[in-house]
């Protein structure tokens, strides 16, 4: 495998194709537009279908249509467009259809701005439309990881017949980094999802099927919700992913840590640089990076918190006014002091800024 230098958005498009996705439905919005611009050229090369929908409302419903027919498919958008998809995602989750949604997050609320942000954490991890449902949420922190998580996203979507969101920020979409793709460009997996026992289509004598989320009987709807809940519990038990940066095995760090940072996506990379800087000064900080935002790795984070030496604190850093920090507090269950630093609007905290906050929390002199 050779490395190629690619923009995050384009790499995500290619990764989707390599994962066997041949159907894309979407609507232009900055900063994710390179995804449709890439796929409109790439999909015809592999016999795929690209539809520029009239709105995000329509594109997510087109995804519902294609997914219901057992065809691997996706859409992508950025924050305001994702808000418009809330209705469709609720239906797709209720109907238990597999699909992948990319949210290349930009700053809100409202029209906000087009620069990177992480302020859709609540929206992504709390279902974002109406009703009791969950979306699996994956948060890459590099272009390579974005590519790898696209493959995983389709796998998880199909394993659990559930929408999966790849939740990155505009910076991941816009930057170029070297990437390697698994598999061969001319040996793509089929775009059938193996929906033999659930997908609609040509019947050939089988019993007819219905893709539906309407349950007028409260008991049946309760049962349906219990079934979904059991699935989400199963996902939570099996599919959490995270990275711990800094402690054991890090010769320079010496193993232990007095402060545990928690950050995801782009923010986590910035924290890593800040941690490298303060470790050079003898300060012992580590980073816990959730890769699955939903299911959130509560137990793993709690273990990492329990390993903080003494009564050291947890420091949550986000490009938002504080959203994931609620989950961090849930993980801590009151056992640790939780510090928070966040910026919004597309203002991205610099490594120096984070490093300075670390020094303050640890009572060290400014660099």
């Amino acid at each position, binding site marked *: 495998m050779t490395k190629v230098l690619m923009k995050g958005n384009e790499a995500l498009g290619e990764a989707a194709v390599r994962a066997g996705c041949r159907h894309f*439905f979407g609507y232009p919005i900055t900063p994710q537009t390179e995804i449709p611009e890439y796929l409109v050229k790439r999909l015809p090369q592999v016999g795929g279908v690209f539809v520029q*929908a009239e709105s995000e409302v329509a594109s997510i419903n*087109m995804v519902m249509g294609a997914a*219901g*027919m057992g065809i691997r498919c996706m859409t992508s958008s950025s924050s305001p467009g994702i808000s418009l998809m809330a209705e469709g995602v609720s239906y797709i989750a209720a109907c238990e259809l597999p699909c992948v949604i990319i949210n290349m997050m930009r700053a809100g609320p409202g029209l906000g701005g087009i620069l990177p942000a992480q302020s859709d954490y609540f929206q992504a991890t709390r279902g974002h439309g109406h009703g009791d449902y969950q979306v699996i949420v994956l948060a890459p922190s590099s272009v390579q990881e974005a590519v790898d998580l696209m493959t995983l996203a389709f796998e998880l979507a199909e394993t659990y017949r559930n929408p999966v969101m790849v939740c990155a920020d505009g910076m991941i979409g816009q930057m170029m980094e070297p990437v390697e793709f698994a598999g061969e460009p001319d040996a793509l997996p089929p775009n059938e999802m193996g929906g033999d026992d659930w997908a*609609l289509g040509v019947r050939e004598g089988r019993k007819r099927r*219905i893709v*539906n989320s*309407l349950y007028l009987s409260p008991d049946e709807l309760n049962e349906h919700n219990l079934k979904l809940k059991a699935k989400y519990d199963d996902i939570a038990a099996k599919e959490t992913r995270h990275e711990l940066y800094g402690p054991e095995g890090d010769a320079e760090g010496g193993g232990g840590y007095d402060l545990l940072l928690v950050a995801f996506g782009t923010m986590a990379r910035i924290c890593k640089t800040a941690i490298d800087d303060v470790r050079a000064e003898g300060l012992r900080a580590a980073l816990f990076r959730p890769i699955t935002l939903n299911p959130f790795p509560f137990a793993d984070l709690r273990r990492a918190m329990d390993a903080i030496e003494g009564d050291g604190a947890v420091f949550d850093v986000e490009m938002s006014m504080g959203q994931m920090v609620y989950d961090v507090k849930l993980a801590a269950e009151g056992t640790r002091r939780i510090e928070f630093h966040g910026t919004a609007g597309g203002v991205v905290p610099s490594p120096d800024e984070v490093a300075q906050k670390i020094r303050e929390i640890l009572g060290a002199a400014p660099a």
Partner: protein
Amino acid sequence: MGDIHIAEERCKGCGLCIDACPRGLISFAEDLNEKGYTYVEFTGDLEQCTGCTLCATACPDQGIEVWNKRGKQTFENTTGLTERMSHYCPGCTHGIIHRITAECLQELGLLDRTVGVAPVGCSVLAYEYFNVDMFEAAHGRAPAVATGAKRARPECIVFTYQGDGDLCSIGGNEILHAANRGEKITVIFVNNAIYGMTGGQMAPTTLPGQRTSTSPDGRDIEATGHPINMAELLATLSTPAYIARGSSHDPQHVLKTKKMIKKAFEHQASGTCFSFVEVLSTCPTNWGLAPQESGDWVRDHMIPQYPLGVIKQPESVS
């Protein structure tokens, strides 16, 4: 002589068959059926029945089958519908439009590869009645779901079945763009000039001056605009399409409308173009009219606003 069989247990007592019979051979029974409706029975002289099938054509509930003088069955319930009783009000012509849609699919041999998309509104449960694979879509989004389905499996026949609130109001954008892209889908648009499921509110298709629960003094066109003629609106698009409007208010019009629906599916099956059939229908409950009066109201008030006929054809066949 012909013969008819009325399924007493399916009858909702709307009486449309009574009015349909040219010889007055059907009338209400004295009793109620087990659902509590005054059902109809054949009370005339069997010798006089010609087996013309108008009674069955007018029945919204698949309640009548007919044989002709030679003992040949001239009206048989379609296998394109399930046997389930519909939830539609007595006299509502949704049942008729369901039936002719299903009959067309059956007659064209398409049932095995048809996928329908049900809307939100009175026909939300259409997935229970059409005997094909079905989606139940979000309000107004059926053409988007159908787009995804058809693009995913072009070999399937994909149709949406939508009411006026669903298609014309909340789903205005989805239908406009599906038509403009020339999606090879078929849209059955049922227009009864009112929101039925939610209890009789004003729709985009409500007639000027028509009273509804949200236009209690009659629709004021100064404040709410004119009715939207969806078929004509879509016909202005340059993209080739088959667009027609029929009515379900009497058996003759039902038969004409069925031809339009059949043509629409033929265009889809041959991959020719987007196809759209608007069907005027009744809402006796929310109009506050008896079923037969409702049919008259369609004739006298709706058709002048919504003229019937083929409005647009793909150029190759026009």
